[in-house]
């Protein structure tokens, strides 16, 4: 425990350095082998016991469904069945719901497209809104004589001083006037 606390203290003190060191820690390269292949395939399938968990992650004690599915997976791998064929056989047996993620075809494709479609749609709506707001903003150039009196350098200086005031005292806000 003392060791952990000590490490935590060091971590706080040199956060960036620790982050780099930790990130640079050796990765968890998987040992090649049949069991790892079974695990990788098992992560693409769901346990059918109703737990809604990945096949290799079902943590139900004595779950007969996941045990049987994993056994079948091992047996098929031992027969050197191709991965795609193996997964297809599970789909035939249990239906598409055995797949851990929607297939990128037919209606399953909708699941993949929709979040990014919404994001893109939102982006375009937001862009249109921002352009509209900018067009509503009166320009300083429209004020007679303003351009000649306030130079860009002066505007930049005013902006910097406003930022400094923000840092020191916090900006004057509507809330502040409450």
């Amino acid at each position: 425990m003392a060791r952990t606390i000590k490490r935590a203290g060091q971590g706080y003190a040199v956060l960036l350095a620790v982050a780099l060191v930790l990130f640079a820690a050796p990765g968890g390269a998987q040992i090649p082998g049949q069991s790892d292949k079974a695990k990788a395939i098992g992560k693409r399938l769901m346990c059918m016991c109703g737990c809604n968990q990945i096949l290799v992650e079902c943590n139900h004690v004595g779950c007969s469904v996941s045990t049987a599915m994993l056994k079948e997976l091992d047996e098929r791998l031992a027969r050197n069945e191709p991965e795609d064929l193996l997964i297809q056989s599970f789909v035939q047996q249990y239906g598409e719901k055995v797949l851990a993620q929607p297939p990128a075809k037919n209606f399953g494709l909708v699941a993949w497209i929709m979040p990014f479609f919404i994001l893109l749609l939102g982006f375009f709506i937001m862009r249109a809104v921002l352009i509209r707001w900018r067009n509503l903003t009166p320009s300083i150039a429209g004020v007679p004589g303003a351009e000649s009196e306030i130079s860009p350098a002066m505007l930049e200086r005013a902006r910097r001083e406003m930022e400094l005031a923000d840092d020191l005292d916090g900006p004057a806000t509507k809330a502040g006037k409450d």
Partner: protein
Amino acid sequence: MDLFGSFALLLAFACAVYAIVAGILAIRTRNPLLLKSARHAGIAVCLLVMIGTISLFYLFLTDDFSVSYVAGHSNRDLEYFFKIAALWSGQEGSLLFWTFLLSGYTFFVLLTNRGKHPELMPYVGVILASVQLFFLILNVFVVSPFQVLGSAGVDGVMRLVAMPDGRGLNPLLQYPEMVAHPPTLYMGYVGFAVPFAFALAALLGRYPGEKWIHITRKWTMIAWCFQSAGVLMGAHWAYAVLGWGGYWAWDPVENASLMPWLTGTAFLHSVMMQEKRGMLKVWNVWLVFSTFLLCILGTFLTRSGIVSSVHAFAQSSIGPWFVGFIVLTLVVCLWAFFKNRDYLKSDNQLDSMVSRESSFLFNNLILLAACFAVLWGTLFPVISEWVQGTKISVGPPFFNKVNIPIGLFLLFLTGVGPLLAWRRTSVDSLKRNFGWPLVGGLVAGAIAWPLGFKDFYALLCLILSVFVILTILGEFLRGAIVISGRTGMNIFAAVGQLTMRNTRRYGGYVVHFGMVLIFIGISGTAFNQEKQMEMGPGSRLDLGGYTMNLQTFTERPEKNYTAERATIEVLKNGQPLITLFPEKRFFPSNEMSGTMVAIYSTLKEDLYVVYAGRSPENNQPIIHAYVNPLVKWIWLGGLIVVLGTGLALVPNRLPVLALKGVAATAPVAAGAAPQAVMSRRGSHGSDD
């Protein structure tokens, strides 16, 4: 006591009805006595619900197994500690607990705003009482926790019976964190009812300006803080108890807690646009509405059985009630919006595309896209079954693939957003604020890559994390250097003073820092390692530089369960490190098993050891070991998020007037002047 509790809830129901009727009449007639009466009825509801909840606690503590709920969720040998948690372990009790927390919030809202905001509070009282009424209907008429057990005698007459002992608490819930996790999460869910009530009240009452936002800012932050803590505590519980090696499985219950957090986070950011620039009034109102509705939707998803979940309540009859409540709430919100939308007219003007305003909009877009992705993935199995007749599962691979890019973009905005100036950001300012952080991030990436940091997303996460941390540090340093230059105090004291001058802004940065740590922790998943093997005494398992020797394997009876415990000596580089004791517990009261994972946790990585049961072939213990890098950073980040939110809630301590004098009359003894000129000011003083 069960009758006492039932009667208290029935009275609370009646008082809630009265609070609504009297409140509406008071709004219409502006009768002050009626208004006062409605408020008192609202307070009475809170007290009566508290009595009902205490009654249920009493029944648990006294092992009254004549009450069905107590008999189903407790037993005599259950520790007192867990008898408290048993109250919210089932459908009926958790709904009562929900009402209890809502009543607590209502009580404080009514009390702290007594005599204030006379145009707003009657509406708030009615709205909160309406939400309470819905839950009281469930507590009293649909799923009462005070139902007693009965049995027909030989004469055919029903008689009350008491079971000699209860069925016990679900083993998964017999973990210390379960005493704190549900109340914390519920405090978040329920807390969003307060800003919802104020937003709807302001809309209904056409309350002028942004006042409702100022009133509810603290309430929103408190709810958000609880929600954040609750979500992370849930993740920690899943990590420590479920024994599958991870902390987030994108289970519908987890998703239900994440969605309102995402919209709540969006609201906390966009609300600044309204405060500063009078913009996004419609957006903010709908964000609050959405957050509250998502809280209710989440409750519906976890309790209706509509989606499969590893820890959802069993399918029950209360689903339609929640659907009805959601639809009714949505109709009221839409009606209020269309009736009074002209009141939400905003001063929408934008000087430049590169400004704080546009970054907040981006932030909102990304948060809502993430929320949609989570909602879509959660509901897609139901939608697919409805559309094509067959169900399509949506598991963690989908959520990870969709949400990781979105999350990384959000991380990028976490660094960029706060450093953009309001209205317009100049190119000079961009260079000044982002130049070095960007270089720092890229250098970190360049160092990490040859050291084996090859996973694309993890590398990007590292670069962005370093970038954001450096921008945050830069913000603190810039302000502290100015203060230090003016006052002569050392840089650390200057950082402290800078923070206390604008707690909301710098508390926000602390929250951002905490979020970065969470992202770093999550990125560690890319380097997880695991191994499972049957181990007899003396056998050895090697994983990620650790050597695990199984020393003994014992079975011992405890008060409430029998434990099968493995004693595993862990060595690192050949040196003894720690002894771990993973367990499997069997609870005879309900014939269920539970796992106690043994974790050796450091900042670098967790060694996570699970006793997964015995081999059916040779009865040997099966040990499943994981090395999960950086997990501790997630919990550490969560703690910093909570501390940062707490800091943002502290009222500002602003130097008033005298600072100019200090600057003019310098030099001043270091540290003396600032304290001399400090004066306390309300929390609305400033923000960012």
